[in-house]
């Protein structure tokens, strides 16, 4: 009897403890984000006052750099770990609130173009990664994970696929490490290439959304170029994320037909389970804005709340990127991933240039 009455007390204590556990890490994310904002303002003001020619380094890059320096030079104490892991929550919150900065007509136009490009990108990426994986004699399920991760949406897609195709832990950590390492490189290479090619904000945003795998890195790579490019990158990446269920379902059916994964009995339920629900929140907020539910000032406030949420995400992207840990995951999956990503980046760049000629982005 005693145990049944004390159970809810124990559960609520555990929940309270785990809620308190995340506080130090969230404070660290907020501290890094705020420091990045101050650095952006003060470094630019100092350079201007001393008539220096100094590139305008935005808060996005400062937040990522501070996080990278901390995670790669100091051992981040364990007390911060669970709070740092909330960066994914801030990312999704930021995306839902970003819906306020799109009227539905924009979502339909840009989202329609993105979706058409996404279908082509996914088909070509899956074929390319499968070919490269076989060429380098990787394990079949590791090939599937790398193909899904690079075609759809990075880490979330790999985690969703891991259970569905019954892949082992080692394969999924290889694939995740390769995707994260390449995402970190894309943060610096994509904006540099785009500046070299003088791409406009919409074209670059589409390219970042289609070519960078992980949602956090795609958002950051877009924001590093410009605010407008960041918006488009999120929209294109969201269109890509929407396809996660279909791709994972196809792979689950393939592996179960070979007797190496469980059969999917209810396909509609499977698709709904894998569908990223935050996309619905994004569309709902965009719908409210399209029907003038908010005043202009209120739309601005929602946009700023989205930026604050992204600021914590960018700090988290830097903090969770540890190059030493990634280098320990083996070279072959990384080489396959890197080759595939370079080819996919060229391919998606070609797609965006083509779309620009057809639709005049």
């Amino acid at each position, binding site marked *: 009897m005693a145990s049944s009455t004390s159970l809810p007390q124990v559960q609520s204590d555990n929940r309270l403890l785990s809620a308190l556990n995340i506080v130090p890490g969230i404070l660290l994310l907020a501290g890094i984000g705020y420091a990045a904002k101050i650095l952006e303002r003060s470094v630019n003001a100092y350079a201007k006052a001393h008539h220096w020619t100094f590139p305008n380094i935005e808060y996005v890059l400062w937040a990522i750099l501070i996080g990278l320096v901390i995670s790669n030079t100091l051992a981040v104490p364990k007390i911060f770990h669970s709070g740092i892991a909330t960066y994914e929550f801030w990312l999704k*919150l930021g995306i839902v609130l970003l819906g306020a900065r799109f009227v539905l007509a924009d979502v339909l136009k840009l989202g329609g173009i993105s979706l058409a490009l996404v279908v082509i990108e996914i088909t070509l990426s899956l074929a390319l990664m499968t070919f490269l994986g076989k060429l380098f004699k990787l394990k079949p399920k590791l090939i599937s994970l790398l193909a899904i991760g690079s075609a759809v949406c990075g880490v979330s897609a790999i985690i969703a696929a891991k259970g569905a195709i019954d892949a082992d832990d080692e394969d999924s950590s290889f694939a995740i490490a390769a995707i994260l390492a390449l995402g970190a490189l894309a943060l610096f290479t994509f904006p540099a290439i785009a500046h070299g090619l003088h791409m406009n904000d919409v074209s670059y945003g589409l390219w970042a959304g289609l070519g960078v795998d992980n949602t956090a890195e795609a958002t950051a790579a877009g924001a590093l170029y410009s605010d407008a490019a960041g918006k488009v990158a999120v929209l294109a990446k969201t269109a890509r994320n929407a396809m996660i269920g279909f791709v994972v379902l196809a792979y689950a059916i393939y592996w179960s037909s070979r007797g190496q994964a469980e059969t999917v009995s209810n396909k509609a339920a499977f698709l709904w389970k894998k569908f990223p629900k935050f996309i619905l929140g994004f569309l709902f907020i965009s719908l409210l804005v399209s029907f003038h539910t908010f005043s202009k000032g209120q739309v601005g406030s*929602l946009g700023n709340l989205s930026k604050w949420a992204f600021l914590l995400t960018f700090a988290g992207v830097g903090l969770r990127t540890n190059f030493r840990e990634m280098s320990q995951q083996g070279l072959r999956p990384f080489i396959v991933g890197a080759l595939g990503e370079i080819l996919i980046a060229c391919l998606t760049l070609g797609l965006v240039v083509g779309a620009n000629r057809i639709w005049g982005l």
Partner: protein
Amino acid sequence: MPTPMPPNPAPTVKPYSLSLDTWAVIVALVLALAVRFDVLKNVPW
């Protein structure tokens, strides 16, 4: 002699938990409501 059936395990109540996506949508909607009804005004950047 039939072997006795093992006793049924005690039913465990799995606490219902929401996904990260759902939490993000809920928090965003609460913030949107707070902005709409001027609880949060002129959020700075």
